């Protein structure tokens, strides 16, 4: 990377930034899920690594969360943007050099931020845990350069039309910049109380709703038509999806605080909007599944489609849960329990991770012009990720229902802890399977770069998957 930081833009091979972002994202995924497995072990086995302040759960939890969101998920997004945006505009990335600096600053800033979090320097605000000066690095060193590259690439495209994926990419980078700017205001201006609580959850909700969800969906809009060769089922439904994300996903922040003294009308408004999140979900799922018409064999044969369609299908339980768990009738029961942890993992480790993994698999093979080193290892990765995640999700959902019942019936806390113990062990098993799968993935992609068979000109990687 360092040799390209000060090279001329023209001397940097196209796709270089995407490759760096791709490998960075896998590495952060390994680190993030490794930390998750470690933290889960602490919950499953209370005597595991005790006596060290820095390895206590309170120090480690947010390092796991932020490593996964800003390391794995967001860097995989950046990787996808670096190669998909120019591909859809029949052009090159506006600036490879900016992309490489972006990747360098991102890795450096994230390493610094996570180290500070680990040492205990935190804003104490969930999902916006970084201290304020790291927030500024994220704003100006991470998201802004990414946005400039994406927006300029779209502006300099060689097509008249802009494909659906690029609507989402361009607008999501803009929206998340605003979310980061406004959502962190409590840290810059020492806002406290209900204002801080509301802005914290406005931030957390919109990082999911205006960044992770739309960008993950945008990737699927690229992967499915590209790999299957089918046209996207409907440009029109793409419009419905895009605008419903912007309108209905940006407004329900107050539904995270249904038991707080926020104005009731705001909660009512947010709660209706919360259910209406199903509108973009229905548009997205129907458009992608209908695009698969006649090509369902890819769901079995092709690793990228396997990941993508699994992610698309996970959008159904994700949005059913998300829409209904925030209503007054259900929220009073599951609020503050493991149910929510299960839901958050369904969003990040289920829905979005499967879509991004497909983009990283496809992108790295395409840019490096190397056939996947081992399809067997890729399938191993898929199944370990899917089974591990499912064990995690089911066990945490059950644990959440137990906690909810215990909360309502005022069961002594220690009894709840004992009742949950088997599910905490299952959570650790599931999380560790995900971590193991990711280690295998890192090895597979590293070997693809080092020893993968070269893809002949004019061929696409997925066409060669079963050729020897």
């Amino acid at each position: 990377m360092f040799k390209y930081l000060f090279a001329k833009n023209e001397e940097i091979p196209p796709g270089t930034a995407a490759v760096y972002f791709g490998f960075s994202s896998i590495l952060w995924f390994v680190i993030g899920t490794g930390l998750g497995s470690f933290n889960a072990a602490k919950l499953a086995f209370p005597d595991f690594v005790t006596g060290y302040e820095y390895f206590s759960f309170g120090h480690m939890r947010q390092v796991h969360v932020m490593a996964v969101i800003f390391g794995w998920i967001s860097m995989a997004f950046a990787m996808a943007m670096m190669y998909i945006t120019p591909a859809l505009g029949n052009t090159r990335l506006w600036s490879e050099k900016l992309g490489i600096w972006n990747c360098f600053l991102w890795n450096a800033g994230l390493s610094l931020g996570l180290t500070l979090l680990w040492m205990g320097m935190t804003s104490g605000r969930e999902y916006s845990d970084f201290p304020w000066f790291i927030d500024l690095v994220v704003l100006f060193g991470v998201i802004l350069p990414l946005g400039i590259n994406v927006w300029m690439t779209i502006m300099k495209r060689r097509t008249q039309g802009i494909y659906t994926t690029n609507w989402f990419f361009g607008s999501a980078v803009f929206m998340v910049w605003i979310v980061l700017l406004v959502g962190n205001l409590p840290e810059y201006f020492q806002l406290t109380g209900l204002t801080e609580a509301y802005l914290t959850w406005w931030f957390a909700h919109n990082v999911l709703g205006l960044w992770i969800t739309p960008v993950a969906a945008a990737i699927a809009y690229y992967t499915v038509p590209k790999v299957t060769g089918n046209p996207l089922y409907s440009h029109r439904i793409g419009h419905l999806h895009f605008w419903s994300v912007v309108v209905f996903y940006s407004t329900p922040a107050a539904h995270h605080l249904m038991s707080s003294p926020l104005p009731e009308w705001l909660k009512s408004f947010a709660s209706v909007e919360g259910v209406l999140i199903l509108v973009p979900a229905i548009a997205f799922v129907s458009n992608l599944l209908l695009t698969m018409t006649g090509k369902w064999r890819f769901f079995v044969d092709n690793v990228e489609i396997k990941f993508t369609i699994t992610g698309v299908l996970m959008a159904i339980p994700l949005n059913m849960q998300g829409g209904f768990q925030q209503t007054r009738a259900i929220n009073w029961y599951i609020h503050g329990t493991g149910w929510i942890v299960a839901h958050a993992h369904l969003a990040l480790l289920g829905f979005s991770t499967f879509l991004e993994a497909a983009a990283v698999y496809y992108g790295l093979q395409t840019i490096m012009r190397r056939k996947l080193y081992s399809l067997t290892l890729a399938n191993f990765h898929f199944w370990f990720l899917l089974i591990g995640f499912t064990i995690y999700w089911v066990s945490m959902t059950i644990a959440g229902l137990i906690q909810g019942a215990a909360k309502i019936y005022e069961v002594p806390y220690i009894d709840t802890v004992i009742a949950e113990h088997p599910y905490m062990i299952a959570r650790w098993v599931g999380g560790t399977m995900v971590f193991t799968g990711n280690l295998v993935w890192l090895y597979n992609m590293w070997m693809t770069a080092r020893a993968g068979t070269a893809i002949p000109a004019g061929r696409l990687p997925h066409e060669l998957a079963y050729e020897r």
Partner: protein
Amino acid sequence: MAWKWDSPLYSLADEEQNDRARKVWEGESLGGIKEDNNRLPRPVVWLLGLTIISAFLMTFPLWGQRPTAAIYADYIALMDTPEVQELVETKGDDAAMQYIVKTVKATGSKWEALQDRHPLTMNDLRLIKDQVIELQNAGADLEEYSILGNQVIIANFEGNCKGPMNAAGNCAEGVERERKQPWWDRGYTIDIFYVIYFCLAVMIAIKRLPNHNWKPDHTKHH
């Protein structure tokens, strides 16, 4: 950007613009990706309609609220009757509570549904009895009070002023706020307008495209 309003459900763009759109659509390759012009399948349209209706019905504050003191007033009124006292002494609390619930149900309480949703024991009733009677003696509206564990407290909902407001938009001196949560508030009114605006805006965006009867020929891609 010519607009055509004679058949808005068919297309809002004139034929010249639609022709231009068709030409770009069929002739341009977006990184090797093609797009069709299919409409949303009808069952999915119904599903979206159902979602919008459900969004309102599911979120009304009728569901998942704390019980108000009012729903237990009839129970408390029966606690000191000779029949209940005798049952407590001879058959215990559970039998006495069953008798209270049955008697109130037989007389037809307007709170029957909420009483079923929030059952309680004789011990629970004893904990709140004196507080409820005190509020009744003070002439308080029991619907404005919630049962929170062993306490009867003023509901945390704060609605419109019961009387005039001052210039700053707050309740005038001595005027209290509504404490009974209504099943409808201005959040829902805003939602209705928001959903209508959304539907209109998306319909306009989509109707600016060539009608869905036109199917692009993807063999024209270069």
